[in-house]
């Protein structure tokens, strides 16, 4: 079974935010919820690099460890999903996540965050695949259609890679060899306990 991962090649990422709006578009994500975002490091300085970040679908996901209601589960594709019916909006996962993935529809004060929302790797939630109920709560289920996450598919410079971890690591490695440099597989060490070495 494939082990799905994201890899953002920061040497290609130009902070065009296509991944962000593709995500909004595909799942009709409301204002204020940012399942994916682009962070620019060293902004405006030589050495500036941008990285697109969303849920990395970690191995041994820390969000799942802290969830009081066990609403997280990992699919056979190693995608970390959650159940909005059981989520109580406690916010613990947002403090456990190293990547700032969990989002809440409301301001956090007085425990009224609402149901947590995050990147589903375009693979919905526990409802029936590609059902309207699933779409309403989690957005589209592209994996079930045999497609990959739209953010990566639409990435303007093909910086953001999605797919089986081994395959995208190979693609990245090949690029680094071709061009002679690479700024690393951002987040991999934290998410998967390994990095891509060339």
């Amino acid at each position, binding site marked *: 079974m494939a082990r799905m991962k994201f890899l953002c090649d920061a040497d290609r990422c130009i902070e065009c935010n296509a991944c962000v709006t593709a995500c909004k578009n595909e799942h009709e994500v409301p204002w204020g919820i940012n399942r994916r975002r682009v962070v620019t490091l060293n902004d405006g300085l030589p050495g500036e690099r941008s990285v697109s970040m969303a849920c990395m679908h970690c191995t041994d996901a820390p969000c799942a460890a802290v969830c009081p209601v066990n609403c997280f589960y990992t699919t056979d594709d190693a995608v970390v999903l959650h159940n909005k019916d059981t989520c109580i909006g406690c916010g613990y996962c947002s403090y456990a996540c190293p990547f700032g993935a969990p989002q809440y529809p409301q301001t956090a004060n007085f425990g009224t965050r609402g149901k947590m929302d995050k990147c589903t790797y375009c693979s919905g939630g526990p409802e029936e695949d590609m059902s309207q109920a699933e779409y309403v709560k989690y957005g589209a289920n592209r994996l079930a259609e045999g497609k990959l996450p739209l953010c990566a598919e639409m990435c303007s410079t093909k910086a953001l890679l999605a797919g089986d971890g081994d395959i995208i690591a190979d693609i990245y490695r090949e690029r680094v060899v071709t061009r002679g*440099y690479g700024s690393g597989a951002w987040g991999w060490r934290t998410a998967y306990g390994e990095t891509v070495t060339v």
Partner: protein
Amino acid sequence: MQILSRMMIALLAVGFLSLTTMDAQAQVNPTAQSVNEDSMFEALGADGNAVAGRTSIPDQNAANLIKPDNKAWAALQGTTLNFVFIVAIVGMVVLLTLFYVIRGRIRVEAGMSGRKILRFNSLDRFAHWTLASTFIILALTGLNLVIGKTVILPIIGENAFGSLTAFGKLAHNYLAWPFMVALALILILWVIDNIPDKVDLAWIKQGGGLLKKGVHPPAKKFNAGQKVVFWSVILGGVALSFTGVMLLFPAEAGAAADWQFFQTIHALAAAVLSAIIIAHIYIGSVGMEGAFDAMGSGEVDENWAKEHHALWVEEVEVKAKTSGTARASTPAE
């Protein structure tokens, strides 16, 4: 508007300062100088910072790209605290059971006199029971957040457990406020009588008389054990209240690391206090004959009082004589 991440920009600016200030027009090779993950992590050190930059959305937290330390909190929260809670609660219950088996119920050795002394008036009792009831619910709902998924979820299924926990969270958030009011009340009402003094030392030396029959070290209104409970409740309660409010208003709590710190304190304080309160409940109910009345009717048997709070009884009697009213001591007949 874009956000400046104070820490990281400052941190990295150091590295590139020489380049940018040397000569504004100087040429540079941005590709060769590009940051990479390894160097960013190296620059990060072990001080809990994030690899952070700028992002155009208003959410400040979004500018934190990677915060590896969150995993440490997650491990603490997900496993360590779980363990601490279980040890604290189960440990105390085991301890009390052992105590009960060995020592049995502590009886009023002189037997009930039938004469009652008013120990706690209705305001005292109202405050105590408000505090007690809210604490119990807070403790249970809090405990549920920590170990519910291992204990309750398998029994009732995840939907029901989700609803239960959601309601529990609501209860926890709202009952915190009466808890805090009662805590303040208790502090005002009882703080004078709970100031430690020399009598307590003697009491402690004799183990409070709990361990041996027939030993009754003298005590004022509150003996040292009760003072420990009082101060545990006050200190623990204040800690829980403060951290709890911070958890409820994360924006006020400061950075995520602060929130995590408060959450950890909250949980640890809750574990310790819960254990103490279990002991308190034990001694106030099955553990000691005649004790419950103090908070039940508010009136205790004179013999019980003399055995456990001899000095207090004297005080009450002196006070009654000087005031000329027989308010405190009323014959049963």
